[in-house]
C-alpha cells in the first residue's frame, strides 16, 4: 500500500507546546524554543538498505554510534546499530516516505512515518547543559558529549532523544504527550538563571 497523499492543509496542525512556549520567559543563559513541524521517519533495516536509504533521504546514515549527519537542513540520527531517526524540518513526510521506499524496494527494511509522534525543543545558551543535567544523568561535557552527538536518553521520567548541534545548543525530541512535562521541568530547571 502506498502512503496517503500530502495534507491539503485545510486543517492546521496543533502545537502541543504552543501555550507553554508563548508564556515562556526569555533567559539568555538557557533559551527555550518550541521547534516547528518536521517530517520524522524511523528507518530500520539490513546492511543493503542503509546506503540507498541515505541516498534517497539526501543525508548518509551515520555508522558511528550516537552520531548524526546533517545536510540541506536534514538530519539522520543514529539511534541503534540498525535504527535511524530521519528528521526533515518543515518538510512533508509523504514524498520523503515515498522516495525512500522507492529506493529501498526489495531490500529488507522498515520505514515508518512518526512525524506527529514527537515534538522538538531547542535549549540554547551557556547554561544549557546545567539545565539539562537537572533531569539527565549523562556527562554533557564536550569531551563526553561532543557536538554531533545524539542519543536516546531520559529527562526526569520521560524518554527523549538528545542532540548537540553546537557547544551550547541542544535539541530534544520528545513524544507528544510527554512534551509539556519536559517543557515544564526545563522551565523549572532554568528558573534560577532569571
Amino acid at each position, binding site marked *: 500500500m502506498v502512503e496517503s497523499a500530502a*495534507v491539503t492543509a485545510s*486543517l*492546521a496542525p*496543533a502545537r502541543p507546546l504552543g501555550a507553554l512556549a508563548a508564556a515562556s520567559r526569555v533567559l539568555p543563559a538557557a533559551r527555550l524554543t518550541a521547534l516547528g513541524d518536521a517530517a520524522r521517519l524511523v528507518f530500520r533495516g539490513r546492511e543493503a538498505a542503509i546506503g540507498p536509504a541515505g541516498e534517497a533521504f539526501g543525508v548518509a546514515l551515520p555508522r558511528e554510534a550516537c552520531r548524526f549527519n546533517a545536510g540541506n537542513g536534514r538530519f539522520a540520527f543514529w539511534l541503534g546499530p540498525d535504527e535511524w531517526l530521519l528528521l526533515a524540518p518543515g518538510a512533508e513526510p509523504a514524498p520523503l516516505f515515498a522516495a525512500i521506499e522507492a529506493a529501498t524496494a526489495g531490500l529488507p*527494511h522498515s520505514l515508518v512515518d512518526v512525524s*506527529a509522534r514527537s515534538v522538538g525543543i531547542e535549549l540554547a545558551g551557556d547554561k544549557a547543559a546545567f539545565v539539562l543535567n537537572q533531569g539527565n544523568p549523562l556527562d554533557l561535557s564536550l569531551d563526553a558529549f561532543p557536538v554531533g552527538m545524539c542519543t536516546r536518553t531520559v529527562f*526526569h521520567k520521560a524518554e527523549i532523544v538528545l542532540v548537540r548541534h553546537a557547544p551550547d545548543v541542544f535539541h530534544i525530541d520528545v513524544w507528544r504527550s510527554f512534551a509539556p512535562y519536559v517543557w515544564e521541568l526545563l522551565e*523549572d*530547571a532554568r528558573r*534560577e538563571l532569571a
Partner: protein
Amino acid sequence: MTNRFRTASGGRIDRAAPLSFRFDGQTFSGFKGDTLASALIANGVHLVGRSFKYHRPRGFLSAGSDEPNALVNVARDAARAAPNLRATQVELYEGLKAQSQNRWPSLSFDAGAVNDLAAPFLPAGFYYKTFMWPAGAWKRFYEPKIRAMAGLGVAPDLPDPDRYTQNHAHCDVLVVGAGPAGLAAALAAAESGAKVILCDEQAELGGSLLSETTATIEGKPAADWLAATLATLTARDNVTLMPRTTAFGYFPHNHIALAERVTEHLAAPGPDLPRERLWEVRAKEVVIAAGALERPLVFPDNDRPGVLLADSARTYANRYGTKVGERAVIFTACDAGYRAALDLKAAGVSIAAIADLRAEVSGELPSRALAAGIDVRPSTVLVGTKGRLRVASAQLAKVTKGAVGPAETIACDSVLMSGGFTPSVHLFSQSRGKLVWDGAAGAYLPGTSVERERSAGACRGVNGLQRVLEDGYAQGEAAALAARTYTSPARGATPAPAAPSRSIPASAEDLGTDGFIGATPHGRNPAFTKAFVDWQNDVTAKDLKLATREGMRSIEHVKRYTTTGMATDQGKTSNMNALGIVSEALDTPVPKIGLTTFRPPFTPTTFGLFAGAARGDVFDPVRKTAIHDWAAEHGAAFEDVGNWKRAHYFPRAGEDMHAAVARECKAVRASVGMFDASTLGKIEVVGPDAAEFMNRMYTNAWAKLEPGRLRYGVMLREDGFVMDDGVVGRMAADRFHVTTTTGGAPRVLAHMEDYLQTEWPDLDVWLTSTTEQWSVIAVQGPKAREVIAPLIEGIDLSKEAFPHMSVREGTILGVPTRLFSVSFTGELGFEINVPSAYGRAVWEAVYAAGERFGITPYGTETMHVLRAEKGYIIVGQETDGTATPDDVNLGWAVGKAKKDFVGKRSLLRESMSAPDRRQLVGLKTTDPKIVLEEGAQIVADPAAPVPVPMLGFVTSSYHSAVLGRSIALAMVKGGRARIGTKLMVPMPTHAIEVEVVEPVFYDPKGERLNG
C-alpha cells in the same frame, strides 16, 4: 546585648558587619561569619536545648556537624521552619530567628526534667520492659505519650514553599573535605589536568586551617597559604569548589550524593533560587579527606552546658573570636587539651587547671603549658561537675595505682575535654570499604577499598600538618593518574599511595596519637552518676554496662538495646567510647566487639532535597491526548489510566456519573457516539518477515489475512496466559498496524523486542511504536457511516466495499487517515486514525458533522458498559494473568493448525484445559436493580461450613440502561456448564442470588455490527 565573650581581635568574623538575630524571642547580636553557636557563645549563652530523654539542660558540645546537643528550629515563617538544625552549622544572617526544642514551658524551666529524677525507672530498653501491659495500651497510650515527651523538633505542617533542584555532575576526581589534605589533593589532581570537584560541608573551605593561628605552610601563615591555594584553585577552569556542600551518601560505582545548601545563609533569598541542590556526582576517582572528630571523655555530669570539646573551644576562639567562658578546667587524654589551653589563654580565657589522664606528661605542648604557668595535673580525672543551667565547678581527683583519690572542687564556667581524635571513616564505610583496627592509632582506619576511592590525611590516621598535606597531595596525584587510565567503574581498585612529588613544608603543633576510649574512672557509686556517652540519645556508660549484663555481646545488639549511636548524629562523638566501655565490661578487645555500620546520610538531609522538582503537576508525567483539551472544555470528568488522562464521562448540568453514562450508552445504541481511543498502544510491525513474526507472537493465524483487513489478536505470555489483545490491521504484505491495550503498550513492545532480539534475530522485521503518531477517533452507532461519509475522500464506505473488520487508507478533510471499520460496542463503528497533530481538528469536524444526529461524546465508563453488554473482555479486568484464551471464550482466536506461537506449549498442559477452570460467564441478579460489586466472591451455598468453597468472582458489573437491568461478567469454576443455574454472591449483610447466563447480553447474533 553585648558580645561580652568576644576576643578583642582576631578570628575570621567580619567585625565591621554586625548582625542582629533572635533566639527564643530574645534579640542578640553577632557578626557576619558567625555561626548561630559562636554568636550565642559570644553573648554568654550556653543553655540551648534539653536532652532527648531526661530533659537535662544542654549546651554546645562541638563546633561542627558532629554536634549532638545544640539542635534548634530556624524559621523564616510558618512554612519555612527547619527543626533539628545544628546551631554549630547555622550561619548567622540579619534577622535570623531560632528557637530551642524539646522543652516546655521554657528552656530554663522545663517540666519534662522530672524524667531526670525518674531516671532509675527509665533504664536502657525501658520501653521493652515497662510498657507491655495492658495489651494494646502501647499503641494507644504509651507510645504517643513517650513520643510527645521524648523527642526533637517539630516539623512544620504546611507545604514546603521552597524549591529544591537536583543536578548530575561528572568529574575525574571528587575530593570530599577541604581541609589541608583535601586542598592538597585537589591541588595535585588539578595540576595534572584532571577535572576536579572539591566539596566541603562548611561555609568556608579550609577545614582545620580555619582555626590555625600559629601554623605555617610553605613559609606562610596557614591562613595566607589557604587564601593563596583557594585563589589558585578558583582560577583553574578544571576545578569546581563547592562550599556548604555535604557529601552525605556514597553509592555503588562512585555515585556520590552531595547536598548543597544554596540559600540557607541568606537573609533574603531570591525566589528563583533553590533552597538546596542535590548533586549526584559520578566520579572516576574519589579522595575522601574527611578529617577526624574529637572524642569526648565519659565522666559523670559531662553534659552540663559549658562542657565542650577542647578543640571546638579552640575553634570558637581562633576562628570566631569567641571565648567559651572566663575560666576553664581542661580534662584531656592527649596533647589537644594543651593546644586548646594555650590558644584560649592567648585569647584571654583563664585556665584553672589541666587534668591529664596520662601519668607521663611530656613533650612540647605540655612544656609550653607549664612554662605559661598553667596548673598541669597528671594522673588526674574529672569525677563530676556542678551547676544548674551552666557548669559552675569541676571536681578533680588524683588516680593512684588505679584508685581514685578524694576530689577537689575547682570553680569554673567551662570544662574542655579531649579524648583524642577519631578518624572520620563514615564515607569510606558507606562505600563498603573494609575497616581495620589499628592498635597503635587506637582507631579503625580504612583498609581494603571496594570502590575507586582513597582516603587522605587524618581520616586515615595520618597526623601532623606536613604529613597530612603531603599525604593529600600524594593521594590527589594518584587519583588523577588513576582517572587518566580509567576504563570502567570496576570495583576494588586500591592503588598504593604514592610518595608525593611535591614537598609541602609546614610547621604546626604535633598532637601525637595519644587518646582514650571508654569511660574514665571516677570512684563514685555508679547508681547515682550519669556519665554520658551519646549526648543526643541520652545514653550513659551505665546503660551500656547494663546491656552487657543483660546478655548483649555484639555491638550491634548493644546499639539497638541502648540506642547508642542511633541518633541523628549517628554516633559521631559516641561510637568509639561505647565500644571502649563494652570492651571493658566484657573484657574483650575492641576489634572483637565489632563495629556498627555507617549508613547514609552523613548528616540529616531534607526531604525536599530528595523530592527535587518532582512534586505537584510534574511529580509524574501526565499524558494527555490531542483531544484532551476539547474534552476538558466540554466538561469531561477524567480518570487516570496509567499516566494517561482519559475522559471518563461527559456529564451535563445536573447529571451524576450514573445519569451521564446511561444517556451516553443510549445515544450510541440509538444513534451515534464518539470516543477518544488515542491512548491505545500502537506498534507498526514492518518487514518481509512481518507476518511470520506476528504468527509467532499471537495465537491467531496471520498468513492468510489479506491486506486491508483487520483481525482481533490475542497475545499470550510464555506460560500460556492471556497477556494482551488488540485489533491488528494488515496495511500491506509486509506491514501490520498493531494495537494494544492502553496500559499494555510498553510491555507488549518490550515483549516483542525481547523475542525479536534474543530468539529470532534472523527475522527481517522491525518494530516501531506509533502510539503517539495517531489520534484515534471511534465513531460508533447506527448513524456512524452517515456521520463520517461526507468527510472522507478516497474510500468507498459502502457495506460491500468496506465490510466490518477492514482498514482503508484515504483522507478525511485532506488529512491522511487509516480508517478502521471496527466496533468495541457491538454497533456499526469506525475508528479514524489521523496523525495526532490533526487529532483535535478532525475530532471537531466529526463532532460538527454528527450534530444533526445528536452525536454524543462518551467516555471510558460508557465504553466499558457497552462492551460488557456484548461480553467483550478487557484484558486486566476479566483476566488476572491466570486466564487461558479458552477461559475467556477466546478459544476461537487460537490458530490450532499453527506450528508454534508464544505460549502454545504451555496451553498443551493438562491443567490448562481442565473442565473446572474458571470460565467467563454472565451473571444476572434475580433482582434486576441490584448491581453486584466487582470483585465479589461467588459461592453455591453461603450457609456451607467455613471455609465456604469459592467458585469464582465478579469481574465487571454495571447497570445497563439499554437493557433496563444490571449485568455482570464473572469468572466461575466450570462456568460454562453452570449456565442456567443459580449461584449466590454473599455480601456482609446478605447473599444475592444470581443466574449464570451466556456473557452476551445484547444483540447476541451480532446483527447490529454491520449496520
